């Protein structure tokens, strides 16, 4: 089934928090592309041992609700690199 707007929104929050999507940049209005979101979901699914479909399906959403460690899975966040470049 298609993810609801609520699932999509909380899914993007989750993907950002754990390093799969770059953090929002308050100085630009750039929005996340659907391709970028799909790639991030695929990476998350691969990491979690799910089938990498790129679709925010029920199994993926359930995995996002599992208790877990607070640290990100992908440490090299692009936001960090972006700020490094700016300096």
């Amino acid at each position, binding site marked *: 089934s298609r993810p609801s707007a609520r699932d999509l929104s909380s899914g993007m929050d989750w993907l950002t928090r754990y390093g799969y999507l770059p953090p929002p940049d308050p100085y630009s209005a750039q929005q996340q592309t659907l391709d970028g979101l799909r790639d991030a979901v695929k990476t998350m699914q691969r990491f979690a041992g799910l089938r990498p479909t790129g679709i925010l399906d029920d199994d993926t959403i359930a995995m996002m609700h599992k*208790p877990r*460690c607070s*640290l990100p899975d992908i440490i090299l966040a692009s936001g960090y690199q972006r700020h490094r470049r700016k300096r």
Partner: protein
Amino acid sequence: YAVSGSVWQKSHLTWRVDSFPVSLSQETTRQLIGSALYTWSRESNLHFEETRAGGADIRVSFVQGSHDDGYPFDGPGGTLGHAFFPGVGSSAGATHMDADESWTYNVAEGTDLFAVAVHEFGHSLGLSHSSAENSIMKPYYQGTVGEHRRYRLPPDDVQGIQALYGKRSAHPGADAPPAPTQRYIPPRGPTYRPRLPFPDRCSTHFDAVANIRGEVFFFKSRYFWRVQATRQLVSLNPAHLGNFWLGLPPDLTRVDAVYERANDSKIVFIAGGNYWVFKDTLVEPGYPRPLTDFGLNTDGVDGAFVWKHNKKTYFFRHNRYWRFDERQGRMDPGYPRDSNLWLGLPSDVDDVISWTDGHTYFFKGPQYWKFQDGQVEADPGYPHSIALNWMYCAAAAPPEPTQEPEGRGQRDCNCQCPAGSG
């Protein structure tokens, strides 16, 4: 396995438990923590020693909510713990467990402290999350791992720790600490609780919005979000009202208005016909007090703010507003007035702030209006979306076509189109 890129430059490390969970005894907690560290030293050239002195290399604490390290906890479920990689800086080696979890050991209920501690100490020693099937460094909680003295690290984690610190030398050190003599029995039956249903910041309407010390606080039910002066959202998840603002009634389900007083920087919370005054995050004695103290004869207020241009406090209720002089302690004469004197503003606003950029923002439902510096007429082009401009929410994606049309006029098109678009 994955490594963080930093390691301890010594093989003898000290550890200490700085605070304890409520659901396990201190002795059990120390045993499990010591044993969790031992699982790593058993496979590597590392040695751990408990110390009661301050300044230990690995410091374990049980904390709740926001605790000033950028990784706020979120109550039962959700995030369970985190630890900082080795390296320079005061945070290196700090290991935090969410005090709101029901910490247990080797039972099906609750959250197994030993299992989580082994994982977090992997971070403390320089390992990142692993996607390997059986790794303890998988980011997701996998339940109890059994009796702690029998536990051995999975092969992926053994390789990881040995890559960082080498294999254990021929003469193994002391055995693991003995098992706790008694198993923990949960005091309140099954302790599994689903994650609390936070309000969705992207679709909710806020009860109150306030500028406190230059940050904007968005209140909804028993939760709030913080937006820094740089417009950065402190956390995507809300914090619990009672974990931060100490002294509000535990059964308070919402606040109607919040503002920082101009004359003494104290913070005023209004809910229903009552108000509370806070010094920093602690309520002052003698509260709640009735709103009649302000000379308000209404059953409540929708919003309140201090206009930076005259330092006066404005209260809004339905389509009227009042102006209060905090220094004189009385309402200014000539009020209430009609709120449509603020041109372009709807009635029944949710709340108002005067922010550090000098502008005044009115919030109602999912939208907000901006009034330029000292003006009483809304900027053209407003209202704008709170979700998009304050809450870091994505704009709704356009619907995707269910079938690719082959060409105009060649075949009937089967697309999902916006209602009314023809």
